[in-house]
């Protein structure tokens, strides 16, 4: 199970990369993409959309089912990953890099302290 040490995590299986200047990149974890199976469509919000921590921010369709992705943080969507439109399978192949979903401008940088670190997420995943 890949859990990069430099990222933060949620119990809903999203990852967060702190880009500095109050901006984060988010996506779903290796565990999440494996549980979903083959991803065939990612419905992303328009830039400028306000997102709230623990609320739905986008939808992932796999062959099997439809699943919500919850925003790990509160803020505004700055940019979304357009390459997922043509290649949603990037989320399966490289969930932490090319499979990123969106960049969010944080409302409150302190929210990052509420997230799990890699070790905490690893413990959370351990049955």
């Amino acid at each position, binding site marked *: 199970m890949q859990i990069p040490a430099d990222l933060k995590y949620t119990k809903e299986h999203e990852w967060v990369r702190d880009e500095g200047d109050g901006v984060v990149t988010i996506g779903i974890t290796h565990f999440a993409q494996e549980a979903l199976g*083959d991803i065939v*469509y990612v419905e992303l919000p328009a830039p400028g959309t306000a997102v709230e921590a623990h609320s739905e921010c986008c939808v992932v369709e796999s062959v*099997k089912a439809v699943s919500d992705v919850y925003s790990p943080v509160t803020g505004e969507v700055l940019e979304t990953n357009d390459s997922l439109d043509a290649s949603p399978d990037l989320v399966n192949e490289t969930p932490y890099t090319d499979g990123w979903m969106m960049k969010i401008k944080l409302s409150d940088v302190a929210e990052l302290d509420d997230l799990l670190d890699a070790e905490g997420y690893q413990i959370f995943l351990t049955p």
Partner: protein
Amino acid sequence: MAQTMKSVPLESQHIAAGGKMVEFAGYSMPVQYTGIKEEHHAVRNRVGLFDVSHMGEVEFRGPDALAAVDRLITNDISNLVDGQAMYTAMCHENGGIVDDLVVYRLAQDRVFICVNAANREKDFEHMKAHKMAGNFEMLDRGDEFAQLAIQGPLALQVVQAITDIDAAAIPYYHAKDGKVAGIDCLVSRTGYTGEDGFEVYIPVAGVKAVFDGLMEAGTPVGMQLCGLGCRDTLRLESKFLLYGNDMNDETNPLEAGLGWVTKLDRATNFVGKSAIQAIKTAGVTRRLRGLVLQDRGVIRHDYPIFVGDKEAGIVTSGGYSPTLEQSIGLGYIAVEHCDAERVDIEIRGRRLSATTTKKPFYKRKD
């Protein structure tokens, strides 16, 4: 749930092979091994092996077996020869569908029926309740048989490698008794994928030997273990209906597009005949149609269908087609709108455009 779930005889083999187990119809079943898309393409291009041991089997035995089954089903059993199979619906008195079945005439006095796993008890109770008087017995043999499906263009080659019968000589929708990996089985040229293939009914004690034999014969030609996930995408592309989705106790065979297996002009007064005749006379109120989503997204079960501003129907099966690389589905559309070439399907509050079709989404080239 874990305590009450039934397991198939090959469960440990599925787990060892990386199968992701889920609950289906009360059984713990593999939904996928390496991925639904990969498994789907393996069946379309090479061959896949499915464990479908959750399916039920009922046998009618005795001099009146054929007549007894004829009274229970919509299709006409009288044209079958020994070893021939037939797809049919079985209906309630009101015309609602109890289940869809594959019926085998094994001999003049032996009829073998494959029923859906989720309907095993319901079907047997229905058959008992509508049993005609006569010289036959009715046996629920579901726990005696395991069933493996070998599907895809290389299925014949794989099955032939481990059987003593001439598998190529079994025509589509026929079955033959034979030894497979040394085990006495019923080898049927049927399937639920739209490809050539076989469904093999195996006494439970022999299923491990048959599984091992198939793996040994299939692995060198790229045979893939396949789960229920791709069974669903494969059947949907071929427009095979799924009981519980596309039909249920409240749908009748005419609206479900099963008129071709509903033989009203035969003498037998089968259960549901007069109700179905009345529906035919009055005309159906909705029809099942194929849907191909033209926008990006995935249509799913229960999404509403619109024609213009009018809500005109509902999606009963929906998903992603790995062959077409777009979303497809089936749904009921009100009869006054069912010939619309374009409809809208509401997905999370947005209306996306879909075309309708009466044909399968995929047909294999022979």
